[in-house]
């Protein structure tokens, strides 16, 4: 065998490994340190103070509100996306006129940055001159303008709806991959046996799609939990922190209120949570590999 740096895998992966490790571990170390220290708003450490920052996070009512909304946000988007994406993927898997056009349209939100999508929605939802209000009035669904983003009770559901719209493309893609892996013979056999459509769906499609459903749920939970631009570019968590989720609350703690200690403590906890999700994903993916 010829000796060459090109045949040593460790040398080949080293630069990528170092870069990726550095960008995660250095900030993580910093976060850990700050979270255990008394720190002023300019980031100067003033001595260890144990878990005080962690306690401060948990006793902040804004944190509890944001935590609760993060559950609703993540759960609402993940479940909503799932309910819509399964039938959409099944339709797109069939052969019909204009299927490629339909696919492109459904994938479209994936192609646009979330920031831009959110800014356009912010304008569309504008109370006085927004095109959503005028559109709904034209078709007679409402008779006066709704101030969509002025109250959490309308703003938050709309933000969840936008979240669902932008999560559908990725989810549908995974499901399409899953559907195309189901052999056609199974369906033909079921047809010969006289199975109804619903039976075929329940007995063949759903069980074989299960690994794909699992993976999409876990991945979406991670992505949605982390999603910042939709809320930030529409309401910035307002009015009065009433649409904050953990990521926007974290950003405010760190860069608006200058509470670096608490923000770092929150980051560390969120990191731990994400790590747990990731391990769950790896476990699911491995199980799929084995079967």
């Amino acid at each position, binding site marked *: 065998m010829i000796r060459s740096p090109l045949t040593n895998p460790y040398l080949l992966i080293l630069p990528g490994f170092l870069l990726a490790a550095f960008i995660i571990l250095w900030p993580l170390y910093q976060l850990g340190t700050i979270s255990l220290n008394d720190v002023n708003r300019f980031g100067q450490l003033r001595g260890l103070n144990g878990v005080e920052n962690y306690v401060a996070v948990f006793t902040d009512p804004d944190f509890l509100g944001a935590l609760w909304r993060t559950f609703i946000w993540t759960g609402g988007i993940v479940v909503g996306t799932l309910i819509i994406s399964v039938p959409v993927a099944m339709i797109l898997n069939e052969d*019909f006129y204009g299927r490629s056009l339909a696919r492109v349209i459904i994938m479209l939100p994936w192609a646009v940055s979330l920031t831009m999508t959110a*800014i356009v929605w912010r304008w569309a939802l504008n109370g006085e001159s927004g095109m959503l209000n005028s559109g709904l009035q034209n078709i007679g669904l409402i008779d006066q303008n709704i101030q969509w983003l002025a109250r959490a009770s309308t703003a938050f559901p709309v933000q969840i709806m936008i979240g669902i719209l932008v999560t559908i493309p990725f989810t549908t893609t995974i499901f399409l991959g899953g559907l195309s892996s189901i052999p056609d013979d199974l369906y033909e056999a079921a047809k010969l046996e006289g199975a109804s459509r619903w039976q075929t769906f329940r007995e063949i499609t759903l069980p074989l799609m299960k690994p794909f459903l699992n993976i999409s749920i876990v991945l979406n939970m991670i992505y949605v939990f982390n999603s910042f631009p939709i809320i930030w570019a529409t309401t*910035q968590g307002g009015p009065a922190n009433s649409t904050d989720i953990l990521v926007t609350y974290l950003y405010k703690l760190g860069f608006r209120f200058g509470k670096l200690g608490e923000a770092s403590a929150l980051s560390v906890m969120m990191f731990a949570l994400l790590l747990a999700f990731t391990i769950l994903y790896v476990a699911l993916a491995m199980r799929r590999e084995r079967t």
Partner: protein
Amino acid sequence: MNPKLKKSLLYWALLSPLIVLILFPFAVMFITAIKPANEVLSPTWWPREAAWRNFIDMWAVTNFGTALWNSIYVSVLSTVLALAVSIPAAYAMSRFRFRGQGFFRQFLLVTQMLSPIVLVIGLFRLVVWLGLLDNVNSIVFVYGAFNVAFTVWMLQSYFSTIPKDLEEAAWIEGASPAKALVMVFLPLALPAMTVTAIFSFINAWNEFVIALTMLRRQESYTLPIQIFSLVAGRYTVEWHHVMAATFVATIPVAVIFAWLQRYLVRGLAIGAVK
């Protein structure tokens, strides 16, 4: 009526609510972008006449050129950085079996799952420590590093589909590994690298929170931050200019993405299965 036509009509009818919701923001963006200034605030759908001038005025008013240049600079350089370290790593992952391979694969997965937002305070301190605050190069570095996981993942899944026999044949013919790599492997891997580079570029192009945190002066803003700054915390917003800028910043990338989307799907799918 033939059965396929009937089926098509039914499916389009079923999909139509979703399609309307998806296309609605695009319609809002385009129609507002061509509305004359004095009609923007009136809640009508169609403008009396199309004001194509908005696109020209927008360029100066929104400082579009500088932000466009910053976005291109950041996206290109961070992609180059990510690919420079990912190509060898992906090559090693697809061609060799070695101890620690599983660990490296899972390490990549973890870095991919972590959104920069969770680390943003630590990243901010890192950038301050490097003396790169308010410098677009800080963004190049952070994007490049965060993209490594995705690019290695994509490249490796494509590289694994290139048969190893071809390189081995070249070795037997007496070519050095370096020569085999350049003459045999790289030409075959070029399409995969191009596709991966484009997705890495789009990721960087669309990124928001890191740019929002690290860039403090308008001269260094990338497009998402520049456009966001025209909207956030302003008393009056020139929506027709904002929408024209959004349109120009979004549509070219969206078209490329829509065109290449199936390769992304395939790359992710192979990567997930193998």
